[in-house]
């Protein structure tokens, strides 16, 4: 009997341990000291700085840091010194919400860049909106975040304080479908997603457009992002006779998935969204990943004239990590906040007003400038007006731009 109850206790503790790992450590220094005569404005950064998605998260943090340094160097807003405060959400909605609360509590924070994951954004939006604190995401692509859960039939803005510089999956999924069907000439797709807000949403918009074009969905699967063994799924893909796999999800799973599908004998490309557009995907997918495709928001940063300066400055600053898929968007997100602060300060005789947060949120709606990724401004839902996308393919161990364009509907 004693042993049986021990197993029961053990099981309960195991469940507890599962929840515990959701928290873990996070670093970040409080930045509420103001210096000298000027005012300090803190721009918060929320992104996964550790864990599986940290490659993307650190790229976001560094790019925001670069924007802040540039603004300070140029004295872009008279009398205001910008600082960043970066908090780690580890890709977990619960951690994201705690971070949001922390940002709200710090009065110097007038805007937040982030998060990376749509599911994390869902947990943060209301906290920010209640405090009228503006949030600009460089990476969230789930349409519901701006246009409401019924966005396919009735668009309705959810939170006035939420903006994003990345375009949505309502455009990204169909864009990928058109490329796969029309350009890559693939007709039979096997659709896999990780059941998360981002992945499932992307897979759904892709499937819908692919079917509309005349393609066939020969199978669907949902995977558990906590595991590494996708051999059973790979075998299903092989026996389905699909000529392409679409994966809605992120690179820590997409890499091994691609590898295991090819190993199972299905020599077909895996296509994904911006969540797999990372150098780490290529590392994880190995040599057999050649030919895999990803769509990502915007045009390739290296090719835009507006981005040359960003790329050069990023190099000069000597950041350890690459700016990755969202670097340009993160820089633009931070810069949008800086522009909004500038307008608020100028409208108020060179000082921050008492209701600075609300004023900055208001000003954000009218922000418009030439950013790293092109023209940056927001529509009535808080979405980016720039709706450019690019298809990349893996060749010689690197992502190469295959086709840029805007989704034609």
């Amino acid at each position, binding site marked *: 009997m004693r*042993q049986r109850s021990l197993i029961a206790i053990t099981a309960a*503790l195991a469940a507890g341990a599962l929840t515990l790992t959701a928290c873990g450590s996070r670093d970040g220094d409080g930045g509420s000291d103001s210096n000298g005569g000027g005012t300090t404005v803190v721009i918060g950064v929320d992104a996964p700085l550790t*864990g*599986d998605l940290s490659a993307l998260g650190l790229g976001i943090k560094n790019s925001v840091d670069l924007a802040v340094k540039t603004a300070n160097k140029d004295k872009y807003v008279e009398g205001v010194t910008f600082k960043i405060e970066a908090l780690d959400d580890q890709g977990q909605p619960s951690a994201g919400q705690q971070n949001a609360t922390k940002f709200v509590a710090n009065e110097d924070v007038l805007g937040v860049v982030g998060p990376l994951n749509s599911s994390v954004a869902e947990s943060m939006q209301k906290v920010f909106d209640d405090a009228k604190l503006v949030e600009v995401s460089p990476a969230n692509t789930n349409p519901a975040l701006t246009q409401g859960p019924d966005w396919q039939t009735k668009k309705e803005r959810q939170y006035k304080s939420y903006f994003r510089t990345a375009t949505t999956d309502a455009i990204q999924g169909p864009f990928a479908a058109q490329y796969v069907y029309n350009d890559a000439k693939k007709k039979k797709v096997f659709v896999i997603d990780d059941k998360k807000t981002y992945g499932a949403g992307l897979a759904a918009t892709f499937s819908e457009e692919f079917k509309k074009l005349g393609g066939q969905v020969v199978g669907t699967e949902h995977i558990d992002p906590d595991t590494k063994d996708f051999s*059973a799924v790979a075998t299903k893909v092989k026996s389905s006779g699909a000529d392409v796999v679409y994966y809605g999800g992120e690179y820590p799973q997409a890499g091994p998935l691609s590898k295991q599908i090819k*190993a*199972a004998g299905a020599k077909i490309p895996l296509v994904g969204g911006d969540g797999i557009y990372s150098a*780490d995907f290529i590392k994880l997918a190995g040599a057999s990943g050649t030919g895999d495709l990803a769509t990502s928001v915007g045009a390739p940063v290296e090719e835009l004239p507006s981005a040359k300066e960003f790329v050069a400055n990023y190099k000069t600053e000597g950041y350890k990590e690459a700016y990755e898929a969202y670097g340009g968007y993160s820089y633009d997100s931070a810069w949008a906040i800086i522009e909004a602060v500038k307008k608020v300060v100028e409208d108020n005789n060179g000082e921050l007003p008492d209701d600075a947060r609300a004023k900055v949120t208001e000003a954000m709606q009218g922000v418009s400038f030439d950013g790293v990724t092109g023209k940056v401004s927001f529509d009535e839902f808080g979405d980016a007006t720039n709706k450019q996308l690019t298809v990349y393919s893996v060749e010689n161990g690197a992502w190469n731009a295959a086709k840029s364009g805007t989704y034609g509907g």
Partner: protein
Amino acid sequence: MNELPQQLVNGLLLGSMYGLVAIGYTMVYGIVQLINFAHGEIFMVGGFGALTVYLYVLPDGTSLWVALPLMLIGGIIVAVLVAVGAERFAYRPLRTAPRLAPLITAIGLSLALQQAVWAWYPDARSAITFPQIDGGPFEIGSVTIQTGDVFLLIAAPISMAILAYFVMKTRTGRGMQATAQDPDTAKLMGINTDRIIVVAFALGATFAAIGAVAYGLKYGEVQFRMGFILGLKAFTAAVLGGIGNIYGAMLGGVVLGVAEALSTAYIADIPGMDQFGSQSWANVWAFVLLILVLLFRPQGLLGERVADRA
């Protein structure tokens, strides 16, 4: 294409890995009635130990035929050191404490080991690539076996055979059986039970390290969280087979792995069950199976026969 043989092989491979790790849970439980929840992390440090040998000890471009045995040895050494250290400093002082105390220590140790690797191992904040065996996959009829899986396919049965021989035939092995049956009497008979317990921890760590090398070769990467879910699964496998029974651990692992593969492949085909059949439900079905076995056969599949407990 009939995918059943391939799915069975997929399950068998996954299950063999669960089984290798489950041996550590079952041996330690069999002897000290402690569920060593840090065992998943012992598996993880074994993987990092092997990787360290490859990345930092051997010269670049060493053939894997030379490297692999050395990596195995490196992984085993690291895993055994951590396991024996844990036993000496975390569990032994609590041996007479209430059952719950060492269990909580184990969970704390598990988190501490994860965070230690996360914080101090270079580049360990995301997955690190593990060396791969070259060569194409083997095709046997409609079944494909990856080159990386061949290691697992060979290592798992050999490990089991060596373990069985050790426990049944050697002096230390018989000492383990005696300690498992009755530690106090065993002590009176002149068996050094402290030493036996250390050996149990070390043996469990050895097989965990072999499992970790198999994991690295199979999935091409190691990461600081790899032991967590896998450890839970291996613990489940040990309970499924009858915790304390070394053959049960292997059987439980294989049953669990095959159940996961088959549930992913076939449950969606059952009318009305299509939304419960995807790979994201495999864990649910694994635990349904565990609950069913515990309800109808609480001692596990092979039972916890005292004589075999070691």
